[in-house]
């Protein structure tokens, strides 16, 4: 049984890749992911805010109130060798690379044009085999039209790709007016893979305190339909690798994504909820299913149910919507 897959030019032993999550916060945990069978790991994200704000914040608080009063001209020991979030992150990548054999992908999360992007190169130098670029951008300016928003993604990718030798996967949100168009533009700009989709954490309201609060809920299985559809639609039209993420909990979800056209499937919620051992279980179930259904390799099934490969391509389009409504009426 050949579970291997090719993702951004890198051969992986299977299509199960834990996505950027707290599971990669410790070297030990990454080692356990590898031992459980993960073919690669996307390390948790280094955020633009960490790079740009952390040093400013530390500078502010360590110098706050200094040189004001004769008795207390400073409040902290004079220390210079700080490891900021970025330094810590790079060191972490280095340590992971020393402890595991599987490929490691760094993850960089930001949106503005600035100094944070140079960390792509530093992540490469730290030993990462690839980079996932997560452009998390919420357009709130009513003057910014969709083309300006899309331009940010393309610009960021081009900037990051400069002088970079490792492949770059672009993690996208589903909120584009024309996803195929932006996908194509990103391909042209040099994206080696598209990761579909970024799951935005939506804020919640705390009614007791009348406050907007962050609310992290793990994904549910039904959420995989969105990436499933879009991978199926884009497969064959966009010549990049595809990583499917969001809502993948079982081997059946993995199979569906592969058949839609994904090269790898990224898991997070399932592992957080039910433990790292789920990787082993899913791989095993995958093998059994393939055996039972007489599939020899992942390669064989990849894209087999993409839009271009199914009998009814309209199933992924508006017609499919009509069909769903009609089915509902019949119920």
């Amino acid at each position, binding site marked *: 049984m050949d579970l291997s897959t090719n993702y951004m030019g890198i051969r992986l032993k299977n299509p199960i890749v834990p996505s950027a999550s707290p599971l990669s916060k410790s070297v030990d945990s990454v080692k356990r992911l590898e031992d459980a069978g993960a073919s690669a790991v996307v390390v948790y994200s280094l955020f633009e805010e960490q790079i*740009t704000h952390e040093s400013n914040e530390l*500078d502010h608080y360590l110098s*706050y*109130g*200094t040189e004001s009063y004769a*008795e207390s001209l*400073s409040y902290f*020991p004079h220390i210079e060798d700080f490891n900021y979030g970025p330094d810590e992150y790079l060191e972490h990548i280095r340590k992971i690379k020393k402890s595991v054999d599987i490929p490691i992908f760094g993850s960089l999360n930001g949106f503005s044009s600035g100094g944070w992007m140079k960390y792509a190169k530093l992540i490469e130098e730290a030993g990462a085999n690839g980079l996932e670029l997560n452009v998390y951008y919420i357009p709130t300016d009513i003057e910014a039209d969709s083309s300006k928003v899309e331009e940010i993604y393309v610009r960021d990718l081009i900037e990051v790709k400069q002088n970079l030798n490792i492949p770059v996967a672009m993690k996208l949100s589903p909120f584009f007016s024309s996803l195929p168009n932006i996908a194509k533009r990103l391909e042209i700009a040099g994206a080696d893979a598209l990761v579909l989709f970024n799951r935005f954490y939506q804020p919640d309201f705390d009614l007791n305190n009348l406050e907007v609060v962050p609310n992290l809920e793990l994904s549910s299985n039904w959420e995989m339909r969105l990436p499933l559809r879009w991978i199926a639609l884009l497969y064959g039209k966009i010549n990049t690798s595809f990583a499917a993420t969001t809502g993948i909990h079982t081997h059946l979800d993995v199979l569906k994504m592969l058949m839609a056209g994904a090269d790898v499937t990224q898991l997070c919620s399932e592992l957080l909820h039910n433990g790292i051992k789920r990787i082993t279980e899913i791989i095993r179930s995958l093998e059994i299913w393939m055996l039972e259904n007489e599939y020899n390799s992942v390669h064989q099934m990849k894209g087999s149910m993409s839009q271009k490969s199914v009998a009814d391509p309209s199933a992924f389009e508006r017609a499919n919507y009509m069909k769903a409504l009609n089915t509902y009426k019949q119920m």
Partner: protein
Amino acid sequence: MIRKKVTIDGNEAAAIIAHKTNEVIAIYPITPSSPMGELSDTWSSLGQKNIWDNVPTVIEMQSEGGAAGAVHGALQSGSLTTTFTASQGLLLMIPNMYKIAGELTSTVFHVTARSLSAQALSIFGDHSDVMATRQTGFAMLCSNSVQEVMDFALISQKATLESRIPFMHFFDGFRTSHEVMKIESIPEEVIKAMIDPEFVKQHRKRALTPDNPFIRGTAQNPDVYFQGRETVNKYYNACPGITQNAMDKLHEFTGRKYSLFDYYGDPEAERVIVMMGSGSETVEETIDYLKNNFNEKTGLIKVRLYRPFSTEHFINKIPKTVKSIAVLDRTKEPGSLGEPLYLDVVTAVYESIERKKLALNQFPKIIGGRYGLSSKEFTPAMVKSIFDELKKNEPKNHFTIGINDDVTYTSLDFDKSFEIKHEAQTNCMFYGLGSDGTVGANKNSIKIIGEETDNFAQGYFVYDSKKSGSTTVSHLRFGKKPIKSIYLIQTADFVACHQFTLLEKFDMLKNIKKGGIFLLNSPYGKDEIFSKLPEKTGRQIKEKELNFYVIDAYSVGKQTGMGSKLNTIMQTCFFAISGIMPQDEAIGHIKNYIKKTYSSKGEEVVAKNFLAVDKAIENLHKVDIEKAILGNIQLPPVVSPKAPEYVRTTLSKIIEGLGDEVSVSQMPVDGTFPSATAQWEKRNIALEVPVWDPDVCIQCGKCAIICPHASIRIKAYDEDLIKTAPPSFKWMRAKGKEFDEKTAYTIQVAVEDCTGCSLCYEICPAKNKKEVKLKALNMAAQASLRKKERENWDYFLSLPEVDRRNAHVSTVKGSQLLQPLFEFSGACSGCGETPYIKLVSQLFGDRAIIANATGCSSIYGGNLPTTPWAVNKENRGPAWSNSLFEDNSEFGLGMRLSIDKHRENAAELLKKLSTELGEKFVIEIINADQSDEAGIYEQRERVRILKEKLLDIKNENSNLLLTIADYLVKKSVWIIGGDGWAYDIGFGGLDHVIASGKNVNILVLDTEVYSNTGGQMSKATGLGAVAKFASSGKSTSKKDLGLMAINYGNVYVAKVAMGANDTQTLRAFLEAESYDGPSLIIAYSHCIAHGINMAKAIDNQKAAVDSAYWILYRFDPRNLEKGLNPLKLDSGAAKIKFKDYAYKENRYKMLKMLMPEHASELMKKAQEAVNEQWKKYEQLAKENGKSSD
């Protein structure tokens, strides 16, 4: 040998040598010496080695007494050991100094000479402390400048090893310790060459060791002690020669020549000054001026080695021609024949003439004078005045200079306009706020000029006595010749004002020369600036024909991400227009220094500073002063005309920065000042202040209880009073059944006293239903509210205070109707300590007597010009005093003993007068129930009647009783201080006092660090937190002071955190005070030394409690009598992990960024400690059956 120039201050110069030539450094922080210990600790933590290739061990002790003990022990065990101290700290070392000297032990103590606490504490420089140790047997070597500090530190080290006499190397606190100067550094090879290994070997050989045992430190009897004491004479006799040899050796290496006494001036001088310390430089400068301009023959003998005093060396320096000598002492010894140096000089001269060892043309007149106490300015004008006095036939002896003594007329007059001008010297003054980075920028500028050009450079910085909104004035001198002007700039070539509002506070252009450069940070552009300037400032600019530049630095700060930090922007402007060096070159240097300073803080910080440099140049504009038309803005009076006379005539001078003009007669004779003066110093430092919205308010009182500055007040009053209120005065109907229908309720903000910390906004639980970001208090710009709210505040003050008999003091809401008697202190904006102090003042202020340990609370509680302890309408209020740092518990206990004695005497006298007063009346007074406000009110009434009756009785007993009758009303003794006092230096006393069983209330304001001296570790510091002397994170747990007190069983103990639970805090204070025995309250006090956002500090307090790190509890021994468990836990098991609390604070977080793995280990240990602590307290609260719920 390469002669490297460095630009450093005196403390650093001393610390460099001390760290290179010692193995053990035991210290305790005290201003102004603290930086020497901190630098040493930093260098050791970075692995920097001494000349023996070994990293010195630096240890912070619990007191200077402890540091001296550790030094003594380390010396006795053969290590080269040193310490750094000053003032009271040096006094605490005296017992060990006698021992160390008595045992002929080589060591150097580096001392930043500072005033002693007498009628008042002062952190500034004079020789009171070092002179108080001149009898200990230590040699005393005095440095006059930063260069000499480095040189003499090394000379002392060499001389002590060779002479076996311990040395105290001292220099003037602040004036030298904090003055930044360009000096020549001593290379390591010279330090090595100066220290003879043979003497180090001998020092080690004298060490205690079981391999060569002996006994040292015996007890001796009348038969031999005396003889034993005389054995050391030959060592003292040899010491001057050895010291001179050390000086000569240094001369060989460096070319800098020193003698035990150095003469400067005309070899045929007729008038000579003898002195030591930094003032000598000013005397030299004046001597040159008088010689060059008036051909006056004057001279100076600089005393270097004061002890052992070598008469032989001294008299050799006296010119034969001398007719009169003035000996200047920077200390005061009341009741003495004269100050110490004067007495020494008189004796030396008399003995030498009498024994014919000194042959002068005539027997000189010798006069003594005092100068420069507490860093009082010592200027050429004063020096000239002294030389002029010496011309007289009968010059004034025991004179003072620099003050106006209009009581005993000791002072010499001096011509304030006399000034020495140096053509080749540029003098610059910078006015800024502490928070805007002005001082930091100037320190960088001095380094740039000092190290990148061939100029000499000097910087001195003047800070004010407030911790919030504090202003700084930087004095920078640059020139081609060495700078000897050791006093503030009198005429400036360049003046910069970094804050527009400071134009209202300082007459900063009075010092600028005609045609000078004036740089102003102004929100107004070059075309409108004149219409916005105070009329006086505009006029000065025109009259002095200044080159006037403006920049809107705040706008540049905003554009470049610098925020309110103006340092880089204003520094760039300074270099751009001052002409010190070509602009491009200067910008290159500024950028290099930015890189050097900020690289460790990340590239983003460097990048925004670079941008600020570029933008500053673009936004700097010259104003055309010829065309400009003067505005009409007049400055307001310094204090209100309604202020009491003393405030108007004296304190206002100090507020205005003219305290030097206050005469002796204007000062109290015994350090006693009127209370309630802070209210007259309207500082207007808040950019934004809270504005009350009655439509949203739920009248919970949380805003008032948390307000650190008592700027938010609440009153409930008769609605009819509203009729006369100003139109914008706000009110609402009082809510709650305790109020009748006609009760109005107002929350009023004192906008001119508020510091804008916004804690009130953050804690306010009420939200506007239409827009949830709005609360019952919302921050708004202060400037536009000032006038209106000033009127409202005055009206609010006129409303009646709550009748304390009816106040519901046990609720936050009710307690906040009580008048705070601690208001508008100079504490940091958002201070975590002052809300507790204010609460004490509200609940018990009218009967409280307070002993306050030295520290933040004694500074914001008692530093001139104005003080926050206030009085109520009946003129009652907290009586406050500060004794020392180490003895506060004992000081408070003494108050209790005295009050109890007065009450006991009063009760006895009452009984003796029972016939005259009526037995029933006497019994009523003696047995009065004073457990609540009503009871206290009634007792006060009884005492009032008693006094009236006593006036009629008129016998010996009644007269006696009249003087102490007020003690029949309950008095509440509060002992207040920080954790440095309670956990460390004052712990022994605190322990003894709580064990005494006496009725005192101890409030520990626990910031977990020495806040006042700048963040040094205390035993209250949490495991894993970074502090000075714990730069790798504290590795041991916080001492559990509460549990120690609980162990006594009869002490009321509470741990509180107002931000987490204000009701529990309130209960604890009420219970503690009502307990007739010792009470200890440990109060979580957030602090800027935690590296937190002070506006959000309530979240930190909550997190501390939620993590079970800070367990809220009350231990009330009275519950034991009721068969209940005395311990009541007021907070639960951990809801969050310790790290979720700790990493909200940079004191913990920085270790994670410094040493991630070590931080993680400490965090694990800290979590375990928190878990253990919770288990322990949970178990204690369950013991003995019933819970006290």
